[in-house]
């Protein structure tokens, strides 16, 4: 396991974060939240909307948090347990532009794109739960999150994650999940069919609607991802360790509030932090620092015995090129080798730092993550894999492709030991040329075409689907007439 931070340095970051919480505090733009903090023993400054959180309250809250999180899926075979020591991966989130699959031109994203990307996410086995890769622009912003959730449910039977753009959106999506699982009471038992989350408006601040959603989740105790959005050099210190301290303080503050309103709420503890490019003033997520922040933060989450939520694999490049490939590969690999329980944006399909989705890139991301999964699996050592008898059988100057016991041994372990490419080229030149000298982009295009032509997601129950459709139509009618 890769370790970026020593034990002593993790502790140093931990104690520094506690000092920030006690001495500087965190802003929560929500009156009720301030009162709730105060009643629990924090120091609330109502004028500045600021809470200062003592160490004992942080410790109390950390003790409430379970060490594992189970996310439920429409098809139970896709239920996910985070915190079991394995690394899990998912896709990218929220592009509002798309490189058109036919013309290659950049255009506004649509609900149809979301449908396509979700079907691909359903198909790719290394996308273990599904995020909306697209935030479609052809649906009004006030209701888009409901349409997004409906489209996810119709096109994927894995756990579907959404973002709530408002408290009303949060409530509506809970209603939809209730329809999905069979009623209000069922949902209380199965609230992990959804997940929620809070990220900061750094430094050290939670906006009003984020805070409202934290409070609302007290009723349901859905699994919550907490992730600081600090940018080193702009909304966090330029030093990575300083940014880690601030991120951790921000995360702990939200964690305390989640636990006060809903003790035992499962937390996935993580980061969507990175750094700012200080020449252009825009955030960069394909930076090596983003990978380092993720890998280091894995250790901080594990120090508190919580599963980690990472954001590694994002691409700054505008086109699906060499830059895109190395940006994505490096940071996912780094985070995976550090043992990150859950890596969001790993099977990445978006260019331009989250803005422009690219169909081909999704297939390339699939290939990248499959390679990384092989690396993370490591080298198994058993009497059978050490293969002493087989080496003896083949002997000197023999061949593992001739000796029958060796051939059988190869057959037994081949798929376990040797990664198989889906779209990468390894052909001899003559055959590669005969087949049209295809580049990775062409191979990726063919894979995308094949998936979109053939993959049929497991359909929703007809009645459930009709009720969800009716619900979303109703919300849209109401919202848009107002």
């Amino acid at each position, binding site marked *: 396991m890769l370790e970026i931070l020593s034990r002593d340095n993790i502790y140093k970051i931990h104690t520094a974060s506690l000092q920030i919480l006690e001495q500087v505090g965190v802003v929560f733009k929500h009156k009720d939240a301030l009162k709730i903090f105060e009643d629990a023993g924090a120091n609330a400054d109502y004028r500045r909307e600021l809470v200062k959180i003592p160490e004992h309250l942080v410790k109390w809250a950390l003790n409430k948090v379970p060490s594992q999180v189970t996310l439920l899926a429409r098809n139970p075979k896709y239920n996910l347990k985070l915190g079991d020591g394995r690394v899990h991966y998912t896709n990218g989130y929220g592009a509002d532009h798309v490189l058109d699959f036919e013309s290659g031109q950049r255009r506004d994203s649509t609900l149809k794109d979301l449908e396509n990307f979700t079907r691909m996410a359903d198909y790719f086995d290394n996308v273990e739960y599904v995020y909306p890769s697209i935030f479609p622009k052809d649906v009004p912003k006030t209701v888009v999150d409901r349409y997004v959730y409906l489209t996810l449910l119709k096109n994927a039977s894995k756990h579907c994650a959404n973002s709530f753009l408002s408290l009303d959106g949060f409530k509506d999506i809970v209603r939809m999940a209730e329809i999905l699982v069979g009623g209000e009471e069922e949902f209380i038992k199965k609230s992990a069919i959804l997940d929620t989350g809070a990220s900061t408006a750094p430094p050290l601040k939670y906006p009003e609607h984020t805070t409202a959603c934290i409070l609302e989740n007290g009723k349901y105790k859905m699994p919550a991802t907490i992730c600081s959005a600090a940018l080193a050099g702009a909304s966090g210190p330029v030093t990575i360790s300083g940014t880690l301290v601030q991120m951790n303080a921000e995360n702990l503050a939200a964690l305390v509030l989640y636990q006060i309103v809903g003790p035992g709420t499962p937390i996935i503890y993580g980061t969507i932090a990175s750094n700012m490019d200080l020449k252009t003033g825009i955030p960069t997520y394909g930076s090596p620092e983003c990978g380092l922040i993720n890998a280091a933060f894995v250790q901080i989450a594990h120090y508190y015995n919580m599963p980690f939520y990472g954001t590694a694999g994002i691409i700054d490049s505008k086109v699906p090129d060499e830059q895109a490939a190395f940006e994505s590969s490096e940071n996912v690999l780094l985070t995976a080798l550090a043992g990150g329980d859950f890596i969001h944006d790993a099977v990445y399909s978006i260019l331009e730092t989250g803005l422009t989705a690219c169909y081909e890139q999704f297939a390339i991301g699939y290939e990248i993550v499959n390679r990384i999964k092989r690396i993370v699996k490591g080298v198994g050592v058993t009497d059978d894999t050490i293969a002493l008898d087989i080496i003896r059988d083949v002997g000197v100057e023999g*061949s593992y*492709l001739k000796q029958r016991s060796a*051939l059988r041994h190869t*057959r037994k372990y*081949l798929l376990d030991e040797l990664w198989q490419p889906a779209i990468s080229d390894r052909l001899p*030149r*003559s*055959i590669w040329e*005969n087949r049209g000298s295809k580049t990775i982009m062409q191979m990726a295009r063919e894979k995308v075409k094949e998936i979109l032509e053939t993959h049929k997601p497991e359909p929703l129950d007809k009645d459930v689907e009709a009720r969800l459709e009716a619900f979303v139509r109703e919300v849209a009618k109401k919202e848009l007439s107002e």
Partner: protein
Amino acid sequence: MSSDDIFERLRRAVAEGDPEKTEKLTKEALEKGVSPLEALEKGLIKGVREVGERFGKGELFITDLILGGEAMKAGADILKPVMKAEDKGRKLGKVLIGTVKGDIHSIGKNIVATMLESEGFEVHDLGEDIPEEAFVEKVKELKPDVLGLSSLMTMTMPAQKDVIEMLAKEKIRDKVKVLIGGAPTTREWADEIGADGWAGDAVSATKESRKVLGKS
């Protein structure tokens, strides 16, 4: 069990790459009085063709191809003596095959040899790293219909040309059809050095052999 069942089981044993099972089933077939030629064509060859095709499509591994070939061979070795007695005239032709000088790769060449044998060719395998004189010597001795020259490296490809030139020098070039193959080779290369045919993979090697002999 009907003979259709036994053919199907033979096919599957070969397709699954199980030499022991194929051997056992072949013996059973003969005991039951199944025609050896039919057992070969409807069982073993069908199985090995399936392996070859699926390998060509990228669905199977070299290991599967080799084990499939071995399974086919295990069955064929039992059928051959019986068939020789029954069916003398079936031979499609005689093939001499080998990997050229400086090249020690054997897998592709061995697969081609097995495939050719399974199709009904008589195959003589010279082995690997064979100098041109040895090829020419053997051509004179065995008088094969086809000479197969394998090269797996760009570096050793010119050796294929050397063999053809030596055959011409010895005035026996027109006595034998020369097929070349191996990953780096191309049809253009085959034309350039005056070979009679080119086989990019094991499956096309059998097709190409039939073609150059006018038996396709």
